[in-house]
């Protein structure tokens, strides 16, 4: 039968068949080992080209940003003076806190207990629709899917794909990302930080009575166990009511410049508490009142 068909029809049929089969197998997860293997040479090349494009980008930005950096430097120097005074107070509080938790025998994992792997940003997602970063560290460096990714300035995202030599990180600015958050205000109100299409961060589902102030810090709450608690997400820059007026929402400015990240830290020893058992028990209770 194939002999009667034109070579063009065979070529079209073969190309479509192979491509569609690849999609189906990939969606089923059957291709995962082959995908991981296929990414190795691409990650190697991406590493080389990524550092070249990174240098090019930095050079261009450095030239363009001298003026704005001078202004920013002035602002930071003023802020530093304020923070130094605040730091002295906080050190006192920290010392009290350490003594109290020792008395209460309260143990928890803090950012100081994390083990980090430093990774270079070597590329970004080629599909263009999802905001992700490609890093040059993978399973052989101890990285696993779900690991949080941070910088010294705050939360960056979470590892979603990992191969032996590289991994892909979903940024918190992507619209698929949702981070349970706590506002550093008097009542420590909670909400969810979502990414938006424009790459900005929006704190949503905040109690309408919560007193959110511009400049309040927003940290991860640790609820849902998607991220560890107390990682800095950003600072509130504006507050409004949601469209349905049931919740407050706030625009958040992260201190991290996601478009110019060159290296990040992957937290490799954070193990979320398995909450799935509670989901099952909730379902059981619901079905057997």
């Amino acid at each position: 039968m194939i002999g009667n068909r034109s070579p063009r029809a065979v070529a079209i049929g073969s190309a479509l068949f192979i491509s569609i089969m690849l999609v189906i197998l990939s969606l089923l997860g059957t291709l995962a080992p082959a995908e991981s293997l296929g990414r190795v040479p691409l990650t190697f090349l991406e590493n080389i080209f990524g550092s070249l494009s990174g240098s090019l980008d930095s050079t261009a930005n450095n030239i363009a940003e001298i003026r704005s950096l001078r202004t920013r430097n002035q602002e930071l120097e003023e802020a530093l003076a304020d923070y130094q005074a605040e730091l002295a107070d906080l050190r006192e509080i920290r010392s009290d806190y350490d003594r109290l938790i020792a008395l209460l025998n309260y143990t928890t994992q803090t950012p100081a207990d994390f083990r980090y792997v430093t990774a270079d940003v070597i590329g970004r997602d080629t599909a263009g629709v999802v905001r992700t970063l490609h890093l040059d560290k993978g399973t052989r460096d101890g990285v696993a899917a779900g690991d949080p990714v941070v910088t010294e300035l705050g939360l960056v995202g979470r590892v979603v794909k990992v191969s032996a030599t590289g991994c892909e990180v979903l940024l918190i600015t992507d619209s698929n990302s949702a981070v349970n958050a706590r506002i550093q205000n008097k009542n420590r109100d909670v909400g969810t930080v979502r990414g938006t299409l424009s790459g900005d961060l929006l704190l949503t589902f905040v109690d309408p009575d919560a007193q959110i102030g511009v400049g309040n810090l927003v940290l991860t709450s640790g609820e849902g166990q998607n991220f560890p608690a107390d990682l800095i997400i950003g600072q509130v820059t504006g507050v409004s009511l949601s469209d349905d007026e049931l919740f407050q929402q706030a625009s958040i400015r992260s201190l991290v410049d996601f478009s110019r990240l060159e290296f990040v830290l992957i937290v490799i020893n954070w193990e979320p508490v398995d909450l799935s058992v509670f989901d099952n028990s909730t379902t059981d209770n619901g079905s057997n009142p």
Partner: protein
Amino acid sequence: MAIYYIGFPFLMIVAVLDATFMQLFRLWGGAPSLMLMVMVSWALVADLEDALPWAVMGGVMRDLLSVAPTGSSAVAFVIIVIIIDRIFPKISWHNIAIPPPTILVASYIYGLMMFGFLRLAGWDVPFFNGLWYIILPGAVINVMGILVVFRLIGGVNNFLRPQRASMLR
């Protein structure tokens, strides 16, 4: 066979360039796609039988550097190559009128298909906003870059198939 030997490393580099250098030219939510420009250019100057293997190879390599399911770009590229083959006969690499509108339409076909595949894979894709915020800026930059890529790919085609290329002058 030279098309395959050259195609594999060439498309590998193009996929990596898409994930690195091309990201420097982001506009709003969109970035240019060198791989799409290569596929459209190759479909315009080469035979369908030559363009399809490149579409599959290039698509797979692109997807390996993406959260999209492997093969989704390949399906999109194969469909784009088939459509181009149906509408246009092979064109000369000196032609500057056809590539820009072709890449504009191809960018939308590719973008919409990727939205569909990403939704299928469970990603939340902002469909209507994505049309103007992600696809349009990428398409605009693709239109600006296509003539350079088209000339380059035309040159590669001339090198690989000098006899056929001379017939199109």
